[in-house]
């Protein structure tokens, strides 16, 4: 009786641990593949007309909510949306948002710790160059950014050097 209960406990613990490890592996694999499908027509057309349709996984859900609340003053421009486009974009971002560690108080992807780490070899001159101009301009280096592909294979830093 006691052994049976203990085995059930151990089984439970083993399954939970397995699930946690698997979730971590999947998360790492997705992040390391540098591929983030952006597959929503509303999001592409409403947000992707002014900047790359940033993959929802790049920020946490709370950060996306903050962005959606302030669309009429969106980093210096009016990006306000009417319904039903607004609701569609919100739902898409919420469903695909990244984990809590990707929340950013300034609402800027380029201020997130993962972004800084991934770009720590890029020098100030490259960021300032005419071809790049802004960290928001993913496509300047990530030639397939529009397709959510941020892999190294399609990476070309203008000037050819990382520094």
């Amino acid at each position, binding site marked *: 009786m006691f052994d049976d209960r203990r085995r059930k406990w151990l089984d439970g613990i083993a399954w939970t641990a397995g699930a946690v490890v698997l979730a971590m592996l999947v998360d790492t694999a997705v992040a390391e593949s540098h591929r983030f499908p952006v597959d929503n027509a509303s999001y592409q057309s409403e947000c992707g007309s002014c900047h790359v349709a940033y993959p929802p996984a790049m920020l946490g859900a709370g950060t996306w909510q903050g962005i959606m609340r302030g669309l009429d003053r969106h980093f210096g421009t*009016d990006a306000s949306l009417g319904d039903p486009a607004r609701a569609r974009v919100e739902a898409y971002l919420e469903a695909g948002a990244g984990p809590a560690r990707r929340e950013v108080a300034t609402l800027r992807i380029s201020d997130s710790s993962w972004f800084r780490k991934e770009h720590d070899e890029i020098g100030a001159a490259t960021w300032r160059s005419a071809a790049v101009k*802004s960290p928001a301009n993913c496509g300047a280096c990530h030639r397939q950014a529009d397709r959510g592909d941020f892999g190294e294979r399609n990476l070309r830093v203008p000037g050819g050097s990382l520094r």
Partner: protein
Amino acid sequence: MRKTPIRTCTQSALVVLLIFAGAAGAEVPADYLRSLDAAARADTTGFAGFSAARGATWFASRHGTDWSCTTCHTDSPLATGRHATTGRSIAPLAPAANPERLTDAAKIEKWFRRNCNDVLGRACTPAEKGDVIAYLTSLKR
């Protein structure tokens, strides 16, 4: 003043002319143009129709902020533009260079709402919208 059949006819003719003036293939929704025209008439007594020339000047002018339409859309609406802050390329505005442009009233209004707020710090008037549409549709490759 009551609308006479002749006046209605003239107005319709003007709107139709405006649609077909300029680039072939530019299909600005007729009911949208009619509503702009009616609103401009209600705003201004003696309003004599939209003007491509007025639209051209307005498009290139600053209106109290650092930006004009040309800041992102370049001096030629036939050319590909570039977003002033993000660097994103912007497809040409003139239907002659980009047949998709100005074909969807909701989309036109959305962009006027956003961009007028950025460039003028206020909403555009119906006359300003009509003038700039007349300008864009008058351009040929």
